[in-house]
């Protein structure tokens, strides 16, 4: 963290706010990371810390809820079955009856991971733990996480199409006419781009709005923004999972000749 960085961040935020704000806003620490070094690789420590909390929470929920599965569901099993049913409906609707089973775990994991990340970022009091650099928050507010997820989706739909249809998968590029080829190729790039930036932008913007509002007026005023943030967070998780399922469904779809 070098001094010019801090100044540039402050300038950035001061431009956003029509208020005579001095240095304290730099405490929002946009774009600062807790760097860990693995060999000569750098990774964002705060993203991994919060993602481990998210993954731990998910695994704990799943582990406790599936310890004793019964035909007459009780307690947590009901909730898990509701989740499963919800994800199955989502996957089946987008991917289709034939292929959805293979992709249900992937779609479900995307949905659960993003949802718990977003809500965890909004609901857990991360501020209580202070890091030397950066701050804890939703793992999905970091561009690395969302790009990783989006690239996984890209790989998934290529793999889905190729494994199901072989090289006939590329017929998809010339349907309905060969004129579509450049557009379909561009789509392969815009899909992960839009997926990652949509999620990243929404979650980061939500965290920033809440942080700025809480900084300006600590009481009551941020609450509507927080509620709206929870709503957007849930919607973003649903959108990401639905689009991922839709792309996979598009790749495995058999057109009628």
């Amino acid at each position, binding site marked *: 963290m070098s001094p010019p960085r801090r100044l540039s961040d402050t300038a950035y935020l001061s431009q956003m706010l029509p208020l005579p704000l001095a240095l304290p806003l730099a405490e929002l620490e946009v774009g600062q990371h807790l760097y860990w070094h693995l060999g000569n690789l750098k990774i964002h420590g705060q993203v991994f810390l919060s993602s481990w909390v998210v993954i731990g929470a998910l695994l704990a929920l799943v582990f406790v809820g599936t310890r004793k599965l019964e035909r007459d569901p009780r307690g947590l099993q009901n909730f898990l079955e509701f989740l499963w049913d919800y994800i199955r409906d989502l996957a089946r609707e987008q991917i289709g009856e034939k292929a959805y089973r293979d992709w249900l775990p992937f779609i479900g994991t995307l949905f659960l991971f993003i949802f718990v990340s977003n809500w965890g970022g909004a609901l857990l009091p991360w501020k209580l733990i202070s890091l030397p650099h950066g701050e804890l928050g939703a793992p999905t507010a970091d561009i690395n996480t969302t790009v990783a997820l989006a*690239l996984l989706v890209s790989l998934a739909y290529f793999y889905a199409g190729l494994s199901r249809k072989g090289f006939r998968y590329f017929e998809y590029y010339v349907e309905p006419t060969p004129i579509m080829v450049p557009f379909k190729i561009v789509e392969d790039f815009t899909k992960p781009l839009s997926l990652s930036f949509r999620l990243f932008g929404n979650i980061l913007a939500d965290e920033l709005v809440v942080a700025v509002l809480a900084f300006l007026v600590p009481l009551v005023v941020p609450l509507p923004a927080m509620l709206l943030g929870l709503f957007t967070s849930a919607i973003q998780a649903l959108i990401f999972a639905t689009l991922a399922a839709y792309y996979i469904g598009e790749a495995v779809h058999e057109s009628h000749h």
Partner: protein
Amino acid sequence: MTSWLLLGATEGGLFDLDATLPLMAVQVVLLTLILNALFFRPVGRTVEEREGYITTSRADAKQKLAQVLRLQADLKEQLKDARKAAQALIVEAEQESDQLYRDAIAEATASANAAREASRRELDSQRDGALGQIQADATKLGDLIVDRLLAPQ
């Protein structure tokens, strides 16, 4: 402020892509595998087993219901037949007892008539006998009287 827009130009920034990306991808893939083993597969199996159980029990119940309805119709038919048979039996018995009653009445009437006839006949004969006797006695008495009157006085 444009410094953080250039990827990797300086340390930090919103768009700082680094080794976090592949590691996060690996982490998510691992999470998918673990959740598949711990959550999606077992819960899916439970739900689908239950769906199968419900489907088969419903089919079973439907079959049983059909059987029950068939048995019910059968029993109703039998009941109707039995009722009809009982009705016929009652009518027959009534007719029979009626017949018996009438026979008995007729018989009794006949025997009563016969007895009356017999007693009347006996009466007649006794009366005839008695009349004959009286006739005879009267004749005898008349003869006696005539004898007495005509007797030598």
